[in-house]
């Protein structure tokens, strides 16, 4: 019965998880950006077919590819409207996969009985389409610029709330505060990155942001364990010994990960930084689980 109660307490904690009010805006801005690319692909294929008619060369039937991309785009829109970050991520990945599929088909088709005049026609025809696409992307990026500022500001407010809550208990929150300082610097870097017009610069912001969110959570776990340990030690919890032992192990693991995933605002290579982020998040999942299990263990031994 007690375990069942603990389960429901943890479940209630998960279901009341914080959501960022700026998430719908940022997802819709991102949807606009992706739709620029899909619309461009559609127009580019039509232009290519016109060139094939004009130069009397065969082209493959791209209608199935475009139909798939349109369906993907609908899924993306639905996820954005529902502010479902997880589904949005899946739909975005699917669009990436299906776009690559289309690019592969175009590459193979280019090897099939084409003339130099055909290629020249496509090269000339795509210039205005690319300009339109770039204008479309720039408009979407403007939406994303403002939404991302709100998004990070909301996160900082939430982070500060968590710091205040822990501080009130007497815990040392200096590690968490340091991450918030980095977050404020990140906001200052949003305008220059978007002003550059280089999507790689914008991606750097997201990579840094992802790392900071992870480090804040690690610091929070570290502060909590340090605060709770002496209280448990002087108390009479039935699971006292196990809580202390597992808490000690978890703190060691958190400290190791804090070193391994140390923050840097310099992103020399997006792929390297992204790979490190993936590794850091992967390693942290077990630690999050163990952290929550410690809370359940305290309740169980109360």
């Amino acid at each position, binding site marked *: 019965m007690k375990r069942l109660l603990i389960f429901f307490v943890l479940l209630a904690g998960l279901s009341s998880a914080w959501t960022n009010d700026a998430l719908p805006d940022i997802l819709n801005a991102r949807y606009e950006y992706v739709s620029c690319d899909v619309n461009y692909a559609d127009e580019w294929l039509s232009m290519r077919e016109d060139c094939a008619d004009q130069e009397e060369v065969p082209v493959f039937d791209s209608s199935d590819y475009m139909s798939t991309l349109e369906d993907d785009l609908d899924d993306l829109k639905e996820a954005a409207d529902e502010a479902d970050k997880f589904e949005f991520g899946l739909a*975005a990945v699917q669009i990436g996969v299906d*776009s690559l599929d289309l690019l592969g088909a175009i590459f193979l088709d280019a090897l099939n009985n084409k003339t130099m005049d055909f290629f020249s026609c496509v090269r000339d025809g795509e210039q205005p389409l690319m300009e339109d696409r770039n204008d479309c992307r720039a408009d979407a990026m403007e939406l994303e610029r403002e939404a991302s500022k709100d998004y990070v500001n909301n996160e900082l407010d939430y982070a500060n709330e968590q710091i205040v809550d822990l501080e009130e208990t007497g815990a040392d929150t200096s590690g968490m505060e340091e991450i918030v300082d980095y977050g404020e610097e990140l906001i200052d870097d949003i305008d220059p990155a978007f002003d550059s017009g280089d999507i790689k610069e914008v991606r750097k912001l997201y990579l840094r942001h992802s790392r900071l969110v992870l480090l804040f959570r690690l610091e929070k776990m570290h502060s909590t364990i340090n605060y709770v340990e002496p209280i448990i030690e002087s108390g009479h919890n039935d699971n006292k010994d196990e809580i202390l032992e597992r808490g000690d192990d978890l703190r060691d693991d958190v400290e190791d990960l804090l070193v391994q995933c140390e923050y840097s605002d310099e992103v020399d290579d997006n792929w390297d930084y992204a790979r490190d982020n993936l590794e850091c998040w992967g390693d942290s999942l077990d630690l999050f689980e163990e952290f*929550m299990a410690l809370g359940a263990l305290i309740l169980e031994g109360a």
Partner: protein
Amino acid sequence: MKIKFLLLLLLGVSFLFFGCAKKGEETNVTQTPNATQNISADDQELADLFQIDTDRPLGDEGLDTGTPSSQN
């Protein structure tokens, strides 16, 4: 004889009174938390601190969708 009985009765009542008072004192001592316990949160409050968001933040999904060009 009557006086002796009354004195014994008074003595008994006194013992009872002081005995109860003494017992009450001891109870209060054991029930009063010491300084450390005063600043400690209880187990429920401690367990509440062990909540953490586990979902990953929004990344750069969709920003790198491949688009066709004559270079393809």
